[in-house]
């Protein structure tokens, strides 16, 4: 028998110490974020910058471990993003939110795409930047809505439906850009895109039509068995997706979409803590590989995109809230709450990490998420005050 404990050699000890220290720092950051009423993602990104190459306290020994944990983190993150909505909610969201969803996509995707092209990036990478700018952070939005006691408000269902639409749009967008990024010749790319889209259509159809039967297979499992089954399924499908040149992250997202019914809520609950642990590592690792000196170079485009991104979300929130018959204060609240970008933007930027413009894309996305994820919740709080002033002057 191999003496596992004794195998903890000097190097293992250093790895434990480094990872333990990082986890403790992240824990403090998560508490700080909770206190400030913002998401922990921008703080994790800052921590990653500090311990990355060229940072304050660069780590070397545990970098490999952090990379692997981060890659599992992105799978679990996308699994839970897929798990977030039930089949009914997806159907309902599509029926009521399609109009505002299109405006949201056009208003927020276009600036990123254009700036990417102006910067002289490859078209596929510019498409990724469009995606980075497009999607609101559903995590931040639902947290801010809860913290500010807005769940009862008239505009809230419209805001949430917009998030559902973005989630669904990602199911199509991610596989397509994933295939375009790999891009080895037009014929190859067409095949990969076709495979990806076919897989997405099948999984969405299965989830929406027969989701109950699928979850029925998993439903009798105990929490422990369910956790292992969902974790195994996610990594397995992710790995298979990677084999056919569709990103593993997308496979995991589709697993999340396919699980529905009662098992969906249970799976989300059992995977949640695991996701928190690994996803924090993912955000850390993402900015870990961003060179802080690159950040300086992208500050101007990031600032410009952040302004455009704020205006874009104000517009989509306005339209969505108007469709729910909410007045001016409600439309303002809806727009500001949507400003924050987060998990999806980082995941999309990570898809392009291996491309020629990947380093710049990563730095730009990190700066963009930092600005919007901090400005969003602050603007949302401010909009309450602005709204009450509007109401008084009416």
């Amino acid at each position, binding site marked *: 028998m191999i003496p596992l404990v004794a195998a903890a050699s000097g190097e293992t000890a250093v790895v434990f110490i480094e990872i333990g220290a990082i986890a403790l720092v992240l824990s403090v950051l998560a508490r700080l974020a909770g206190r400030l009423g913002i998401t922990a993602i921008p703080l994790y990104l800052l921590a990653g910058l500090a311990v990355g190459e060229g940072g304050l306290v660069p780590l070397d020994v545990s970098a490999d471990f952090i990379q692997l944990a981060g890659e599992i983190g992105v799978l679990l993150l996308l699994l839970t993003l897929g798990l*977030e*909505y039930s089949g*009914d*909610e997806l159907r*309902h*969201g599509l029926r009521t939110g399609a109009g505002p969803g299109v405006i949201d996509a056009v208003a927020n995707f276009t600036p990123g795409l254009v700036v990417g092209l102006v910067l002289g990036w490859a078209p596929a990478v510019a498409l990724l930047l469009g995606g980075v700018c497009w999607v609101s952070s*559903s995590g931040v939005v*639902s947290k801010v*809505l*809860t913290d500010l*006691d*807005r*769940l*009862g*408000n*008239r*505009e*809230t*269902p419209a805001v*949430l*439906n917009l*998030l*559902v639409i973005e989630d669904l749009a990602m199911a199509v967008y991610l596989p397509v850009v994933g295939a375009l990024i790999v891009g080895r010749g037009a014929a190859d790319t067409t095949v990969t895109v076709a495979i990806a889209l076919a897989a997405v259509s099948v999984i969405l159809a299965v989830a929406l039509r027969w989701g109950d039967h699928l979850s029925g297979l998993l*439903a009798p499992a105990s929490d422990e068995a369910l956790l292992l089954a969902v974790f195994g399924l996610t990594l397995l499908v992710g790995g298979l997706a990677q084999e056919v040149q569709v990103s593993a992250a997308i496979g995991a997202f589709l697993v999340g979409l396919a699980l529905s019914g*009662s098992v969906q*809520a249970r799976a989300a609950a059992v995977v949640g803590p695991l996701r928190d642990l690994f996803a924090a590592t993912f955000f850390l690792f993402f900015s870990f590989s961003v060179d802080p000196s690159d950040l300086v170079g992208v500050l101007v485009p990031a600032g410009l995109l952040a302004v455009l991104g704020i205006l874009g979300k104000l517009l989509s929130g306005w339209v969505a809230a108007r469709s729910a018959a*909410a*007045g001016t*204060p*409600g439309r303002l*609240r809806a727009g500001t709450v949507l400003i924050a970008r987060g998990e999806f933007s980082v995941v999309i930027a990570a898809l392009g990490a291996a491309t020629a413009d990947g380093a710049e894309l990563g730095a730009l996305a990190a700066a963009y998420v930092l600005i919007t994820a901090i400005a969003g919740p602050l603007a949302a709080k401010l909009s309450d005050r602005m*709204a*009450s002033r509007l*109401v*008084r002057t009416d």
Partner: protein
Amino acid sequence: MTEVTETQLAGIGVRHEFTTASGERVSVLSHRTGRRELAVFSKDDPDACSTVLHLSPDDTRTLSELLGASPVGEAVSAVQRLEGVAIDWIRLRPGSAPVGTTIGAGRLRTRTGTSVVALVRAGETVPAPGPEVAMAAEDLVVAIGTPDGLRQLRVLLEA
């Protein structure tokens, strides 16, 4: 009863709203996690909530007890927490086949696997009726079972 509107909150839960007799608009939010929020709409801004009570499942029970909730409602929420078990109410139309027969005579449990847990007759609840109890027109039959069984039961009782 006052008219209640239901709104789905994607990813969060479901929201019910009604307007009280004195004109206040009340919103009850049921999180998927079982937490509830009670909100009253602001008079200044008809789209926003001004006060919010945050209730744990225990708090909700206490509050509804104090407000005089019906025991049937409690039983329903208990049943809804069970996997695969559903509850249904079936109103017996005058002249439909089961009117005048007893619960036992229809062999409802044997044929559908569902159990009649209560009859509501003229506002009075007959809890756990035995097989000898006869069903009358306008009775509300409360039954639990699998969704499939309840569908079969509905067919039998509406024949």
